[in-house]
C-alpha cells in the first residue's frame, strides 16, 4: 500500500468523523435549545462596599488582598466583585450573624456550599467568556467532585497552585501518592518548581486521557524531550506507543524513572537471541556467589554484560529509536 493512499484513507476517515460530529453538534443545538443568559450582579466598588464594610482589613483572613489580584482590578469591567462570586446574599446582609452568604467557599465552614454551587459561581464567568474552561464538564476532576476553590484561593495575592514551587503541595493534597513519588531517587525537578504538575496535566480537562496537557502521552513528553519525538528510521514500537510503557513519570527508585530494572524490563518483551537468557543475580557485585560443584571457574565470576551495570543499555543505547542506517538493533 502506498503512503499517499493511506493518507487519503485516513484523511477521509478523519473528515467523515468530523462531519458526523458537526451534525451531532447541530442536532444538539436544535434539541436542547440555547441556554438562557445568566442574571447580572452588581460588580461595582459600590456593590463591594456592602461586604467590605464588615469584611475589612481586620478580618480573620486577608479579604482585601483580592484587590491585588486579577479579580480585583475595577478598571477591568469583567472583574466579579464580591457578589459576583458569593451571590447577592441579601439575607446575609440583613442578618450577618445568622445567615450565611449565598455561596460559601470556606472549606471548614459548616455552611460550605455544595461543589456544584461553588463551581457554578466560578463558571458563570469562566465558562462564558473567551477563556472558557471548555473541557471542564465531564472531566475527571469535575465528575469526582473537585471544586475550583479546592485548588484556587481567589483572595490570595500569590496562589499556591500558580506558584511552581508550591503547586505540588496543592495537587498533592489529594494526589498524595504522586507527591510521595516526587521525592524518589529518580524524579523530575518537581520539588524545585522546574517541572510542575501542570507542565504535563491540564487539570481543567483536555483532549488527552488522564487530563494530559497534550493529546497523547508522547506528545506531552516530547514538549520537553523533543529529541525523542522522531520519527526515527528504526522505531521501537513501545516507545512510539507510549513513554509510560517503560517509564513512570512521577518518580522511581530506578533511574531513569524506570518501572522495572534493566535487564528485566527488556526481557518482559524480548525472548530471542541473548535476550532469552536467564540473567540472575548470581555473582553480581554485592550478590550471592554461585559455584559449580564448589569450584568457581575463572570467567564465571562475573555475570554477562547484559545483566550487570547498565545491562542491555550498555550496547542498545539508542533505545528510543535510531536514525543510523545500521541502527536497527538500537546500537548506533
Amino acid at each position, binding site marked *: 500500500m502506498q503512503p499517499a493512499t493511506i493518507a487519503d484513507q485516513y484523511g477521509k476517515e478523519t473528515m467523515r468523523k468530523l462531519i458526523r460530529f458537526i451534525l451531532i453538534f447541530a442536532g444538539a443545538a436544535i434539541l436542547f435549545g440555547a441556554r438562557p443568559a445568566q442574571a447580572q450582579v452588581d460588580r461595582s466598588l459600590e456593590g463591594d462596599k456592602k461586604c467590605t464594610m464588615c469584611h475589612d482589613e481586620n478580618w480573620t483572613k*486577608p479579604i482585601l488582598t483580592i484587590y491585588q489580584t486579577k479579580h480585583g482590578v475595577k478598571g477591568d469591567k469583567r472583574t466579579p466583585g464580591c457578589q459576583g462570586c458569593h451571590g447577592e446574599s441579601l439575607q446575609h446582609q440583613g442578618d450577618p450573624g445568622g445567615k450565611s452568604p449565598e455561596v460559601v467557599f470556606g472549606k471548614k465552614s459548616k455552611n460550605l456550599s455544595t461543589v456544584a454551587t461553588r463551581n457554578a459561581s466560578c463558571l458563570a464567568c469562566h465558562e462564558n467568556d473567551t477563556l472558557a474552561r471548555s473541557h471542564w464538564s465531564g472531566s475527571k476532576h469535575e465528575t469526582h467532585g473537585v471544586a475550583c476553590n479546592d485548588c484556587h484561593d481567589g483572595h490570595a495575592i500569590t496562589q499556591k497552585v500558580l*506558584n511552581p514551587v508550591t503547586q505540588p503541595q496543592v495537587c498533592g493534597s489529594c494526589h498524595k501518592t504522586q507527591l510521595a513519588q516526587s521525592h524518589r531517587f529518580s524524579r523530575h525537578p518537581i520539588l524545585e518548581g522546574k517541572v510542575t504538575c501542570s507542565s504535563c496535566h491540564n487539570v481543567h480537562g483536555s483532549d488527552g486521557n488522564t487530563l494530559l496537557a497534550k493529546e497523547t502521552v508522547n506528545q506531552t513528553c516530547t514538549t520537553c524531550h523533543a529529541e525523542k519525538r522522531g520519527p526515527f528510521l528504526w522505531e521501537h514500537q513501545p516507545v512510539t506507543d507510549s513513554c509510560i510503557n517503560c517509564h513512570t513519570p512521577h518518580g522511581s527508585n530506578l533511574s531513569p524513572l524506570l518501572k522495572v*530494572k534493566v535487564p528485566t524490563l527488556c526481557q518482559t518483551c524480548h*525472548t530471542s537471541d541473548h535476550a532469552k537468557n*536467564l540473567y540472575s543475580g548470581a555473582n553480581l557485585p554485592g*550478590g550471592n556467589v554461585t559455584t559449580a560443584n564448589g569450584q568457581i571457574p575463572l570467567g564465571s565470576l562475573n555475570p554477562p554484560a547484559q545483566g*550487570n551495570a547498565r545491562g542491555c543499555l550498555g550496547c542498545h543505547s539508542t533505545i528510543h529509536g535510531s536514525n543510523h542506517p545500521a541502527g536497527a538493533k538500537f546500537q548506533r
Partner: protein
Amino acid sequence: MTTSAKKTGTDCNRPGCVRGDIIACLLLLVFFGSSTQAYSQANPTTAAPAATAPTAASQTTPGKTADFGVGGVSGSSYKFGEYNGLQNSGPFGVGNFDFRGGAAYDSNSAWRWQMKGTDLGLETRSLYAEFGKQGKFRVYGSYSEMLANRSDSFQTPYLGAGTNNFTLPSTWLLPVVAQKSATAQNFRGLDPIAGSGSYYSTAGVLTAPTAAQLLTNATIRAADLPLFHNVNLSTKRTKVEFGMKLQLASNVYVPVSYSYEHKSGLKALGAVTSQVSENSVILPIPIDFDTSQANAAVFYRFKQLLVSAAYYGSYFTDNINSYTYQDVADLTKSATLATAPSNQFNQFTFTAMEKFKHNAKLVVSGSYGRNTQDDPFITAAQNGQLAFGLPTASLHGLVVSSLVNAKFTAEPAKKWNVVAHYRYANRDNQTPVNTYYFQDANESKSGTSAFAGLYGNPATLGSNTNIYANRPYSDKTNQAEGEAEYAIAKKQWFAGEYKWEKVDRSCPGSWIDCSDARTTSEHTLGASWNKTSVAGFTGRATYDYSWRRGAYNENAFLALVPMANQVPTGGASQSLYSFLKSTGLNGFGPLTNLPGVALTGDAAIYTPLNNAVPQGLYGSRNAINELLGLRRYTVADRNRQKAFVDLDWQATEKFTLHANGEADSNDFINSTYGVKKDLFWEATLDASYTTANAFVLDVYYTYDHKRMRFRGDAYGSNSTTAFVGQAADTLVAGGCFPTVATKNASAKIDPCLSYTKDDTNKYDTAGFTLSKSAGNLQLAAQVLYNRGRSYTEVAGGSYVNNPLALAAPAPALPAGTPAVFYIAAQNYPTIRDDEFTITPTASYVFKKKTTLKAFYLFQKMMSSDWAYLGMQYGTGTNYLPSNEIAPNYAISAGGLSLLYAF
C-alpha cells in the same frame, strides 16, 4: 473602609508611570545578577514575607519585596544539587525579588505590571516580567535555567569530552588477563585482584599465573589506570519565552507565545564496540539541542457558542549529528553513533463549545498535526558497516496525527448527570519503507547470503549481512464512554460507567503486518460512590473492571526482514513466510525435541532438528523470532481491576484525618511467557492539627507497592551432542535430564530452562510539617524520610559446564563426575535508597518592612545499587568501567537573608 481610604496605591493609569519602577528593577537585576548563588525556594515558607499589621493599603496595593542574603553548603554532591544548584560546597548568595505595580484597584485604569526573579545567583535562576492592561492585553517574557547534575564520579580514558570525537591516548594498552588470553580483551584485567586469579589449563589443572603474566597485567594497569580521568556529567537548559495575550474585543481573545530553549552539557551513553563479542564502552557524549516552540490561538464567542482555533509548533535541532569513537580493543578502528535527528511538529487544533438548557454542554474538538524528520543519514561506513550503500539519503519521515474529540454533558433531570464521550486519535506514520543492508558493529562481511544477487539484492551480500526494512508504526484509537450519575441522597452520588477502547496498529508500506496485535479492544465497567462534606466527612470509592482482548501475531517480527517473503538459495522450495503459513508455525518452530526421524524437505531447512528458524534464512545476523507463547504486555489479553477509596474526615475545626487506598491489578491471562501479573497498591494516612494560635502540624505516611511477575525461557537448540570435552564426560548434575545426550536432545523444551522473575518495588514515605507563629516570629519545619527498595527475585537455573570437562590432552573426568552442573538462579541484590531531609526555617519581622529569614537544609542519602558496583574496575569482562558510585552523603545547607518589602 471607604473608597478614599483604599486609594493609597500607586495612582498610575498610564504605561509611562511604571518606567521609574522598571528602571529601578533593572538596576537591581544587574547588581544582584552578578552575585554568586541563591537558595532555591525548596521550603515555601522561606518565600513568604512575615505578616505585618494589616492595613487597607497594604492589602490592596501591589507590593514589592526583595530578598537577599548569603548561604553555604557543607559538602559537594551532584545528587544533593541534582536540580537545586547546590552541588558544590562553599558559600552562595541568596537573591529573590517580586515587584508588582500598576494602577490602584479602584481607579479606572487596569494597568498592572510585575517583575519577579528567583534563585538569581544559582544556575537554576529564573526571571519573569509582564505588563498589560487587564481586559485588553498582557505582554510577558521570562528567562529560566534548569540544571540536571548527572554524575560527579564518572571516569573515562577517552579524550575529547565535550566534543563528538572520542579518542584514546596513544599509551592505551588493550586490557587482557594474560593468564587467560594474551590477546582477548578482558576488562577484569584492570583490577589487580580480579585480574590475577588462577585459571584452568588445557590439561584441566588450576594454574596460578606466572610471574611474566602478572607483569603483563601490571604493565597494562600501570598504563591504563592513570588514563581514567573524571568528567562531571550535567546538562543545563536555558529557556527564553515571550508571549502576548490580546483581548481584541469582548468576544475575541488572541494569545500568542514563542519560546526558545538551548540544552547543553554532557551525559553518559553506552556504545558498542564489538557487537559479536558484546563489548561496549560508556561515552560522555555532548548535548547541544535547540528547541523552539510557538503557540497562537484565536478564541471567538458568539452568545453561548465558543469556537477557537490554535496552532502549536515545535522545532527541534540537534547541533551534533554523530559521535565518533575509537575502538577500545583496536585503535586502528573507530565507530560512529547517530544522534537524535532534528525534527519538526506543526499542529492545528480547533474547539467548539455550545451550552444548552439543562446545563447541557457539547464540546467538539479536533486537531491535525504533521511531524517531519529529514536529517541526512550518516554515510560514514566505518569498518564496512554500510558497504552496500543506502536506498535514500534521508528518511523523509512524516507522521500525520489527527484527533476528533466530542463530549456531551447534561443534567437531564434534577438528580441526574450524564456524560457521553467519544474520541478518535490517529497517528499515521507515512514514512517510506526501504530496505537497508548493514553489517553488525565491528564485524566484517563473511560467507555468502542466501539472498545474494537475488530479488534486487547486491551480489556480494555476506551470510552475516543484515537485510532489514524499517517499520513505520501507526496506530488508530477509538474510544467511547458513557457515565451516568444519580444523587442517592443529599451530597451523595452513585455513578456507573462504561468505556470502550479499540486500538488498531499497523505499519503502512510494510510487506506484512508488523504489529504484535493488529487490533485490541478493551471494555471497562465502573461504579463509583461519592459523598461530599456531610458532617465533615467526604468520601469516594470507585471500582473498575476491564477486559482487553486481541488477536496476537507471533510472526509480526517478519516485517523487519523482507527476505522472509523470498525463497532463499540452499534447496528450499518456498519462502519462510510461505512455510510458516503452510505449517502453522512461527519463527520459533515446533515446540518439541529432536525429531524421531530425520526431517526432510523444507522442514529440514527451516526448522532443522525442530529448532527455531535459522536467522540467515530471513536475512538477519541475529535470531529475532520470539518465544512461542510470549505475549508482549502492552497489547496482551488482560483482565484488570482497579479500586480506589478516599476518606476525609474533618473531625473538629482543628483536626483533620485523611486516608486513601488504591489498587490496580492486571492479569495477563493468555500469556505463557512475558508479563503474567502486574500489581500496584498504595495506602496513605495524613493527619493535620491546627490550633487557633497559628500552630499547624501535619503528619503523613504513604506506602506504595508495585510488583510485576514475568516468565521467560532460556531455551537452547536440540542437538545430538552427547558429551562435554571427552566421550566419557556425559553426566549432568541437577536439572531435568541425567545425561548430556538427553539434555541436548530436549534443549529446546527443557522445563528447567524456564524461569520466572518477580520485580517488586516498595516505597515508604513518612514525614511531618509544622509551623508556628508567635508575634513577629514565624517558625516552620519539614521532616521527610523516604525509603525505596527494589527486589528482583529469580526462580530457575542454568547449565554450566564443569571447567574440568576438557578435550584431550586433558584427562577425562573421574567416573561419576558430572560434566555439566545445573546452577540455581539467584535473586538480584536489593536496590535501596534511604533519604532523610529536615528543613527548618524561621523569619522574624524586626522592622515594619524588614524581615530576617533563616533557613537550614540537612539531607542524608544512603544509596546502594548493584548497577554502580558493576561499573568498577574488575567487575565486568566486556564493558569499559566508568567507576561511577552510588550517591551517599550527609550535607547541610543554610543561610540568612533580609527580605525588604516596599
